[in-house]
C-alpha cells in the first residue's frame, strides 16, 4: 500500500488541510534522512519536520526551541536514552496551551524498552519497520492526543495486565475494562483502529478513547503492579 492509497482512505492529515510540526530525534543520521524523505514532503503528507537531534541534550534544545506538536523519539540515544528526554521534558508534555507529544519510534521491541518509554509519557510506540503511511497516520493520531499502539505493544500491555486477573486488585485504576481488553486484543491481532471500530460496532473515536485510557492506566499503575510485571519477566 503506497501513501497515495492512504490519502484516498482519508487517513493522512493533508486531506484535512493541516500540518503537524514534528521533530526527529535519532542518533543515526541515515535514519533521520530516510524518515525525512518518507514523511517530510509537507504538501503530500501534512507533516513538517521542523528540527532534528542526535542525542539527549540536543533533543531538549531543539524541542524547547521549536515547540513541535509531535516528537519522533528513538529509544536508544546517547546521553541517557529516550526515557531521559521524556523525563526532562515532562513540563512541556503537560503544557495546557501547546503540549509536546512523544511518539517512540524504535528498532527495539524489547518489552522493557517499550514499557519504559510508555511509562515515561510517550503517547505511542511504533517500530522502525512501520511504513511511511502508517507513520504519518500515527503522527496525526498522537498530535490529536490519542495513543498509538503497535500490535506488539498491545501484546505487552495485555501481558502486563493479564496476571492481574487472578488476585483482586485494590485499585480499580489498574484494571482494564473488558472493552479495553477487547480493543487491545484486536490491535494485537493486527487490526487497524478503523477495522476494530467496524468489528465492535463502535466509532473510531471510541476505539481511540479506549486506547488512550489504557495508556493512562499504564502510566499510573501502582508500584505493586509494576514490580510484579517486572518480576514476571525477570527484569528485576
Amino acid at each position, binding site marked *: 500500500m503506497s501513501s497515495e492509497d492512504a490519502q484516498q482512505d482519508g487517513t493522512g492529515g493533508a486531506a484535512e488541510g493541516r500540518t503537524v510540526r514534528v521533530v526527529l530525534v535519532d542518533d543515526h543520521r541515515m535514519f533521520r534522512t530516510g524518515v525525512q524523505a518518507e514523511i517530510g514532503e509537507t504538501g503530500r503528507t501534512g507533516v513538517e519536520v521542523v528540527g532534528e537531534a542526535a542525542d539527549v541534550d540536543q533533543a531538549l534544545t531543539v524541542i524547547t526551541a521549536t515547540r513541535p506538536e509531535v516528537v519522533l523519539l528513538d529509544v536508544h540515544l546517547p546521553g541517557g536514552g529516550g526515557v531521559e528526554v521524556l523525563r526532562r521534558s515532562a513540563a512541556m508534555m503537560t503544557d495546557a496551551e501547546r503540549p509536546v507529544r512523544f511518539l517512540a519510534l524504535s528498532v527495539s521491541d524489547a518489552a522493557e524498552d517499550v514499557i519504559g518509554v510508555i511509562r515515561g509519557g510517550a503517547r505511542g510506540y511504533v517500530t522502525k519497520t512501520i511504513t511511511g503511511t502508517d507513520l504519518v497516520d500515527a503522527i496525526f493520531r498522537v498530535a490529536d492526543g490519542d495513543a498509538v499502539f503497535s500490535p506488539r505493544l498491545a501484546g505487552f500491555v495485555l501481558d502486563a495486565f493479564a496476571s492481574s486477573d487472578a488476585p483482586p486488585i485494590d485499585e480499580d485504576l489498574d484494571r482494564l475494562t473488558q472493552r479495553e481488553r477487547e480493543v487491545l486484543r484486536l490491535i494485537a*491481532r*493486527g487490526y487497524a483502529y478503523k477495522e476494530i471500530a467496524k468489528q465492535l460496532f463502535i466509532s473510531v473515536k471510541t476505539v481511540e478513547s479506549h486506547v488512550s485510557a489504557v495508556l493512562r492506566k499504564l502510566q499510573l499503575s501502582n508500584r505493586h503492579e509494576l514490580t510484579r510485571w517486572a518480576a514476571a519477566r525477570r527484569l528485576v
Partner: protein
Amino acid sequence: MTSAPPRAETGYAPAPDPDDPPVRKLYRSADGRLLGGVARGLAGHLGLPVSWVRIVFVALFMADGMGALLYAAFWFFVPLGVGGVEHRQPAPADGRRRLLRHRPDKGQVFALIALLIGSSIVASRFQLGQADGYLWPVLLIGAGVALVWRQADNSRRAQWLELGRRKGLLPMVRGAAGVLLVGVGVTGIVVLQGSVRHLGSVLQAALAVVVGIALLAGPYLVRMAQDLSEERLMRIRAQERAEVAAHVHDSVLHTLTLIQRNADDPREVARLARAQERELRAWLYKPEGRGKEEDEEPATLAEAVRKSAAEVEDHHGVPIEVVVVGDCPLDEPLGAQMQAAREAMVNAAKYGGEGGAVQVFAEVEGRTVFVSVRDRGPGFDLDAVPGDRMGVRESIIGRMERHGGTARLRSAPEGGTVVELEIERAAAEREI
C-alpha cells in the same frame, strides 16, 4: 613458564621434553609454593625435584645465611609465573591438586614462622658482637618486607587465575602487619644507635619526610593509578567491541553480501533480511540466547508459535509478525493447535502474502488458548474451495475439532483472511 613449573608440580624430574620451546625463562611458581615459589620455580627450571632445591637452600642458609640472601634475591628479581594454570587440564588427579592448591596458604604461614624461628636460632648461634644488636631489627624488617612481597604475589596471582577475590580483610591485615614489622625494625635500629632521647624528634623528622614525599609523589601516583584503571577500562571496551564486530561480521556482513548477490529477487532479499533481523534481535536482546538457534523441540506455546512463524517466514519470504500474550507448556491438544496454526500461516504466506505482513496472535487466558492468523490478501471463501482440496478442511478445521477445539475462518471486511483457533488446555483440566 610454558615448560618448567608444571613439570615440577609432579614432584619428580622427567626427561626434558624435546618439543619444549627453546626459550626457557626462569619463573617463580605460583602453584604449590611455600614462601615465594622460588624453590619450586628453580626446581622446574633445572628439572630437579623440588625437595632437593629446598634442602640446598636450607643448607646454604646454615652457612652464614647465604641461602636466605639468595632466596631473597630470587624472590625480588624473578617474576612470578603461571605455573599451575596450564597444568590443570591434563592432570587426571585434578581434585587432589585443587586440594593441594588451597592448602599451601596455611603452609606458607608455617613456613614464615619456621623461617623466623630458624633464623633467630641461627642468629643467636653467631655471636656477632657489635652487630648483634642490629640483628633483631633487621630480621623484623626482613619479615615485614617478605610479608608485603608475598601479598603482592598473591594479588598478582589472583589476577591471572581470577580466583582471588578474597574478602579484602586478610590482605589488608597482612599488609599492615608487614608495614608494622618494618616500622618496628627501623625504629629499633634508630633506638639502638643510642638516640633514644632524640626518638621523638627523629620520628617527627621522619614523618615530615614521609609527608613531603607523599605530597610530591601523591598526585603523580594517583594520576598513574587513574591512567592504569582507565587503560584497563579501554581494554575491556575494546574487547567487547571486538566481540560485537566479530558477530556483526559473521552474520550481518555475510547476509548483506548475499543480499547484494540476490538483488534482483526481492522475495529472497526480504527473506534474508528478515532472517538476519530475527537472529540479530535474539542476539541483542536475549542475554542468555546469544543468537544461537536451538534445534530442540520447543517446550512452551510461545516458543512453538515463534518457531513455526520463523520457519514459515524463512520458507516463503513473507514477513510474519508474532504477538504472544501469556505462555504455557505445550501439551497434546496445543500441539495439534500449533500444527493447525502452522498450516494457517503457510496458507496466509502463500495466498495472502502480497498484501503485507501476516499477523499471528496467540493468547493464553486461563484454560483457553487462542491463536489467530491474519493476512491482508484477497480473502478466502471456504465454500468456493473444491471438495477434494483437504488442506483447510482437514489440516485446520478437522484437526482442531478432533482435539476438541474450534477453528473459524472468515474473510475480513477490509480484505484478507482471518483464521481463529481456540482450544482448551489439557493440563489445566487435570489441575482442577
